[in-house]
């Protein structure tokens, strides 16, 4: 059993995991401050913030020998017999010195800086710095520049940690960023005319410990302390990146990645990052509609639901065939309730999978830690990151539900072909995608082939215009539930926004149709039910999933890999817990 000594106390090191001093200390509740180190990037030890006293204990004599000089914690492996001192005067004085040096040329423009509130300089100044400094010289003022259409670099705020540079070299391997000039005039820059525009570029903003790299989309829009943060999942593709959806005054302002070693590591793609805008669209469906005498008119949602229920029941009583289309944007809980409802109406109702949007091809980034600097790379653990061509979050989850209810998955194409033969009396179509469903041909076909067309969506689409009843469902941000990603990993997420005026969360719609309850329904209760009924979902027993999700059809223990701990830079830590939830 490997043990190490941290500030005079002995701790047992975890097996099968290579940790450096920073990570090991973190496990044992001791913070070693750092800037340049990042668990997925090569170790460069250039900020010098994490310097500590390091020594080793002789296994035989028990004698402790300290290295006479201070050593950066990031490059110090935590091994059996390692001795770390992080709280000595020497270490504290060193931290004060680094903070003073880092702030020499830093413009203290926190009042207008986006990073304020989640800034490594602010937090560490408070914890490890000092109130005054000895510097009376003129500051260097480095220029501000654009590094792409989306990202601005305020070079005056940069602390030269080179995280951004290493990200573009080691993770995306596109190398757009580099250091130019030397000494205190060193700058981060792009090659002239070659922008930082790779699909993962936005991550450099998250990596930057200070307010140097800025997302122009978010620039000066919100103070971060006003943002309520909700653990969410990106609906942009079937990767299912874990995100923090950050909202204030009923609007989403940005998405930030959340660590999940089994899904997205520390990153999200730019398409996903900016997909939050869909939920803010003022033109989303804001009322239920009912067609009377050929004209669609607004109607209260409970009347609309009563009308749906009555007409479907009547159809089924008359022996009319009912088809339901389950969008791959539905959560598994929603899919479960809708399927239950439709199958209850009539055992020979048909459940089909909604259209699965595909765009381009899957793109995987295979980070290469050997492209970084030399040194011990054993505790650098970057994982591949894939952007999937399948632009919906839950095909696998919906399919698993469909298979349970009718043993097979009917693709949308097959379904429309069947509809063309016109033997359906009613069709209940759910959509709710990021992009509106715009296929006029399919819309006309569905309309022409059925008597009763019910459309549940968030967008105003040509199909909705043709429907008999339109139900305003929830956007990805307005609902909670679970998605199964491309690897069939089931992950739960919280709602970030309250249902917009005039709409009702899809889960509530289905619950009301099922006559379950009129009170708000909790997605984890439905998930618990699902776990009991469908064997594939047994991993979600009790409606709970492990920290990093679980693969359908497996047992929870075998599905997590990597560090069991959530990683976040300390200055962004408050993003971890959601402030509140509308679920």
């Amino acid at each position: 059993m490997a043990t190490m000594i941290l500030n005079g106390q002995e701790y047992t090191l975890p097996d099968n995991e290579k940790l450096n001093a920073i990570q090991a200390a973190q496990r044992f509740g001791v913070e070693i401050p750092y800037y340049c180190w990042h668990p997925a990037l090569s170790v460069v030890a250039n900020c010098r913030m994490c310097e500590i006293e390091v020594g080793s204990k002789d296994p035989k004599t028990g004698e402790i020998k300290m290295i006479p000089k201070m050593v950066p914690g990031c490059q110090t492996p935590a091994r059996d017999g390692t001795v770390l001192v992080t709280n000595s005067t020497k270490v504290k004085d060193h931290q004060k010195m680094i903070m003073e040096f880092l702030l020499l040329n830093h413009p203290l423009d926190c009042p207008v800086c986006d990073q304020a509130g989640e800034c490594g300089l602010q937090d560490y100044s408070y914890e490890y710095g000092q109130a005054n400094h000895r510097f009376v010289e003129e500051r260097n003022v480095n220029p501000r520049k654009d590094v792409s259409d989306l990202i601005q670099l305020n070079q005056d705020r940069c602390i030269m940690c080179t995280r951004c540079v290493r990200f573009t070299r080691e993770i995306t391997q596109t190398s757009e960023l580099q250091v130019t000039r030397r000494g205190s005039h060193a700058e981060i820059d792009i090659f002239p005319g070659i922008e930082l525009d790779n699909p993962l570029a936005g991550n450099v903003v998250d990596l930057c410990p200070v307010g140097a790299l800025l997302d122009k989309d978010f620039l000066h829009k919100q103070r971060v302390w006003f943002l309520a943060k909700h653990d969410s999942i990106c609906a942009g593709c079937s990767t299912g990146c874990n995100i923090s959806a950050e909202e204030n005054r009923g609007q989403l302002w940005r998405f930030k990645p959340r660590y999940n070693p089994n899904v997205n590591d520390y990153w999200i793609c730019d398409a996903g990052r900016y997909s939050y805008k869909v939920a803010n669209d003022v033109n989303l469906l804001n009322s239920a509609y009912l067609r009377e005498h050929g004209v669609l008119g607004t109607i209260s949602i409970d009347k609309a639901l009563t009308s749906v229920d009555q007409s479907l029941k009547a159809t089924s009583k008359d022996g009319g065939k009912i088809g339901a289309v389950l969008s791959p944007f539905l959560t598994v809980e929603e899919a479960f309730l809708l399927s239950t409802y439709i199958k209850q109406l009539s055992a020979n109702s048909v459940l089909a999978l909604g259209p699965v949007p595909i765009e381009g091809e899957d793109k995987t980034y295979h980070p290469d830690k050997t492209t970084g600097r030399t040194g011990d790379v054993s505790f650098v653990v970057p994982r591949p990151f894939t952007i999937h061509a399948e632009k919906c979050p839950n095909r696998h989850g919906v399919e698993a539900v469909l298979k349970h209810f009718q043993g097979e998955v009917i693709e949308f194409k097959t379904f429309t072909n069947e509809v063309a033969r016109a033997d359906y009396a009613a069709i209940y179509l759910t959509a709710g995608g990021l992009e509106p469903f715009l296929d006029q041909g399919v819309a006309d076909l569905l309309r022409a082939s059925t008597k009763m067309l019910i459309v549940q969506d968030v967008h105003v689409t040509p199909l909705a215009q043709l429907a008999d009843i339109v139900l305003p469902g929830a956007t990805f941000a307005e609902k909670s539930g679970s998605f199964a990603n491309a690897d069939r990993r089931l992950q739960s997420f919280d709602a970030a926004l309250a249902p917009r005026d005039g709409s009702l969360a899809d889960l509530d719609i289905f619950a009301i149709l099922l006559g379950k309850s009129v009170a708000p329904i909790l997605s984890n209760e439905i998930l618990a039910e699902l776990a009991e009924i469908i064997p594939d979902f047994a991993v979600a027993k009790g409606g709970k999933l492990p920290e990093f999700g679980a693969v359908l059809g497996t047992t929870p223990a075998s599905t997590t890999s990597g560090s069991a701990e959530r990683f976040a830079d300390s200055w962004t830590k408050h993003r971890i817990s959601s402030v509140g939830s509308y679920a």
Partner: protein
Amino acid sequence: MAAFEPVLSRNWNVAQSHTLPVYESRGGYQAARKALTQMDPDGVVNLIKDSELRGRGGAGFPCGLKWSFLPKDRKETLMCINADESEPATFNNRILMEKDPHQLIEGIIIGCFATKATAAYLYVRFEYIKAYQILERAIDEARAKGYLGKNIFGSGFDLEIWVHRGAGAYICGEETGLIESLEGKRGWPRIKPPFPAVEGAFKKPTVVNNVETLACVPHIVERGADWFKSMGTPKSYGPKLYCISGHVNKQTCVELPLGITCRELIEVHGQGVWKGRKAKAVVPGGISMGLLSADELDTPLDFEAIRKPGCLGLGTAAVTVIDDQTSIVDYLYNCARFFAHESCGQCTPCREGTAWIYKTMKRIKLGGGRMEDLTVLGGIQANLGITPGTTICGLADGAAWPIKNALAKFRPELEEYIKTHQDPRYAVTPLQTAITMGSPTTAAVTPVSIGMSSPTGALRSPHSS
């Protein structure tokens, strides 16, 4: 002591000494032939170990020991020859390369044979255009003669030497900065471990040696370790090329046994301080090493004794004399400017500290000095290099040492300078001081708000031109 016979510089005054025929006519390539045909690599390593040859590049690390750090099971080894010679006032490598390139090539052949390196990269300082051309020609000559290439001297040993020109950065003389630069990257020194011997250029085990270190090697092979150890002082053996510059009558590079005193070097070889003046201070081995005061001129210039008066080390043994009419402030200002310009900028203390020292020295020089600046400078130098382990490479130590030594040895002069050189245009404003202290007192702010047009103006240092 027996009469000293120069070996490293023995061909310097010979006509056409840079050509192969002349070099061979003076016994050249015999040592390489001997090593490759009569010795085995470990034998050469042991011989160098026995000779206690210490690196001439600055750090004085035992050469044989460095060679034996290479992993035993290595498949490929590379050699980098450090000819980046950028330490101010140092020019012995340059003469070695321009006057006797074959001596260096012979040293490289033996060094590579000993370390089993099959490729050698000669990293030449950008500004050494002549040395670069001479080396290229010499390498061609040697290759044509079969001294480079395949199966050298029929020993089955292959070697190619590639000359790589730097791009004009002091930091690329630091061994890992050199390696990064050689790999085509920005010359940012690497963290250690791993040391280059384990993982160096192109991730292969790499030996980095200075030009002069390798130039010593053929002579040790030829004459033996005992001959080498017959010169010098304990722990510092062999001949050394001393550069003398600054305020002396004769600026030159001479070969002498290690351990000659600074005084002898100046008086005998530099022919005394110029214009009949006295020396105020002497830089013992490149500006990174600190300063000797006039009282310390009897210090032997070897790897050990130089530490006693508080210098960092022997460095490159490039002695610069500062006469008694030169201000230490000017000297420190120039040093500070150099290091602020040459810091690569990755380590926080070095990047910010060197620039801070420079700005402070500039202000003192212009007449804005305050007594407390000396305390501040004392603090910064401690943060930079005097506290061990605060930075990746030794540049920060080098930047700190002149300040450290000057504060210890020339404090009265610095204080006097500050007292007598006051120019209100460059003075620190009361508001600046108050902001620094984190608590603007009324006393400090009031005169500013009356005297200056706007407080924002006061935030800007007046000497920004």
